């Protein structure tokens, strides 16, 4: 049974429709991508899932039912707007926030320290939060999200202030969490991160769900008849059945005209005595799909 089931949620702020009939579900042991351009309704959807906002209509089931005070202890949340108490020492801040998630003080202390070591922040534990750099605060915020070992982890732009080393560490951590059976929802604009991490995704634009499914299905759905080709030989300007050619060094992307197959193209190239180093069906990147969907939606609007 999915950990989170979102069914037909709608949320209006006055005359503005922030979320319009969005549905999806998230399983335990997967990283689920919640994508969309700025102002698409991602954060509002998340706030509805976390019971910060009540939806105007629709339902959310979390860990088998509506949100309760007890379930809050089982949720780790990294909000888009990062927030820590700036005027108190880092360790005290993290331990306090951990105890608010139902942890005993001594256990919270122990776990916070383990994470501080792992996140390379242990030397900073007595420093006031405001003395930490943005990246360090981001890591501290991640500790707050994970320290109470929640069943459900909701993270909004987790890599925004991190350098490549820390980004990799957080990725490893998220994979670890997923492999241990946690449910993870990740909101982001960084499509390559989604491609790398997410098992399934939903794309929201203008409050509406535009795409929903596994990463592979979504890409297949948007795959146009195109071929990625590598060859040391120059290609003729006109190839029968090819609509357009894009070249980057010795790599080409060939878009086919409707009604022509990749098999025909391969035969044509072989007949023309062109040496082929790589020939594969080109799948669109998530970036391309994102732009494509959002632009189409913008045109409709």
């Amino acid at each position: 049974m999915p950990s989170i089931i979102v069914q037909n949620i709608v949320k209006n702020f006055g005359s503005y429709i922030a979320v319009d009939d969005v549905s999806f579900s998230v399983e335990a042991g997967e990283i689920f991508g919640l994508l969309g351009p700025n102002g698409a309704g991602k954060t509002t959807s998340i706030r509805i899932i976390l019971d910060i906002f009540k939806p105007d209509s629709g339902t959310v089931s979390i860990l088998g039912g509506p949100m309760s005070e007890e379930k809050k202890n089982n949720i780790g949340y990294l909000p888009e707007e990062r927030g820590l108490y700036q005027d108190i020492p880092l360790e005290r801040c993290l331990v306090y926030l951990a105890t608010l998630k139902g942890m005993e003080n001594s256990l919270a202390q122990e776990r916070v320290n383990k994470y501080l070591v792992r996140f390379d922040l242990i030397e900073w534990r007595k420093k006031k939060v405001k003395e930490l750099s943005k990246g360090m605060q981001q890591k501290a915020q991640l500790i707050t999200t994970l320290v109470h070992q929640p069943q459900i982890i909701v993270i909004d732009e987790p890599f925004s202030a991190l350098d490549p080393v820390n980004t990799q560490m957080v990725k490893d951590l998220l994979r670890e969490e997923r492999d241990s059976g946690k449910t993870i929802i990740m909101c982001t604009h960084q499509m390559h991160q989604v491609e790398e991490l997410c098992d399934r995704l939903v794309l929201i634009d203008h409050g509406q769900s535009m795409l929903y499914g596994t990463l592979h299905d979504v890409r297949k759905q948007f795959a146009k008849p195109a071929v990625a080709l590598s060859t040391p030989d120059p290609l003729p300007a006109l190839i029968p059945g090819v609509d357009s050619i894009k070249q980057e060094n010795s790599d080409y992307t060939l878009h086919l005209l409707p009604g022509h197959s990749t098999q025909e193209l391969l035969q044509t190239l072989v007949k023309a005595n062109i040496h082929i180093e790589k020939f594969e069906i080109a799948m669109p990147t998530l970036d391309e799909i994102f732009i494509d969907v959002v632009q189409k939606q913008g045109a409709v609007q």
Partner: protein
Amino acid sequence: MKKFWLIFSQEYKRHVLRRRFIFAILSMPIFVGFIALVSFLSVRMQYNGSTVGYIDSYSILSNPQPVPEKVSSLLPSANFVAYSSEVAARSDLNSEKIQAYFILSKDYLSNGEVTLMKGKKAGSNIESDFGSFLKYNLLAGQPAKVINRLTLGNNLIVRSADGTRELAANNWMAIAMPFIAGILFIIAVNISGGYLLQAVVEEKENRTMEILITSVSPSQLMGGKVIADLLVGLTELTIWIGFFLIALRFVPQWVSVGQTSNIDVSSVLLMVATFLPAFVMIAAAMGAIGATATEAREAQQIAGLFTLPIVVPFWFSSAIMFNPNGPIALGLSMFPLTAPIALPLRAVFTNIPLWQIVVTIGLLCALAAFSVWLAGRVFRIGMLRYGKKVSFREVFRPQSFQGK
């Protein structure tokens, strides 16, 4: 319930352990002490303890003796030297050997006529000192009890017509208590309310709110904060009252302050019963303002408006004192925002019917509960708003917020 206490203790420690709080605690007695010292010094500078002459040509005083000095007095009193003629006295005044001289007229005993010639440096104390000197020497030979009574004056006790209430005219504490307590109340309300407001606005500004709200319920969060900030205010108040009591213990040694022992327990209870619900009411309202305001400075300005009605009874204090059952006194003592100051003040001067006390305190308690409820509601709507205020319509519209 555990989370409520966590919020409570974090909020309390957060304020009390700050350097700013310790500074605020100490600044009040230091400020009052400084004002008292400056006032004392300005009075002391006008006093002059040097010699004053007098000419008693008609021997009204026989064998004059100096008034025995009070050991503990911090202010100097002039000593008096007799001159046989005005010429000698004037010459000494001119050469500043004496600061002034008095001339007792021939008919002094019948018409009390005395002439005073002052030099430039004459102190403001010489007239009353000479009065004491005359009184002391004129009464010479009378029994000590009589001298004492005439020197100290009467101990007037004013009783209300129904005989249930009495007030010693020189028991200034009974009158000053509601004033002092009222001022302390206003300061404490401002401090605690200010802390609450600051805490809520801070959590909005530093974006901790979303983390908190996904960890605890809004009522746990708001309840813990209101109670903690109430206690912060009370901590401050208790320490100040401690300083005040210490001052009362020592000040009478130096300055005559009248009776201090007759503080009525029932009036203290009345103050506590009025202050506590009023405190919760105002603190919660300030919390609500914090939740609706978009930045700390704006919230502080709105909160300032709350102090205004609380201090109104001070402007009308003479109306309350001289006509404690009049419409102004009655209205101010029953209106919730003015009641904390007006009710205890009015109780000093009249017997307030029990029903009025019950209604006033009942109303305050009801408003306190309403205020906490409203704060929770406004807070739920306003907590994640940045740069946009919460409107009244939204607060009272059902279903627009996160329900429990």
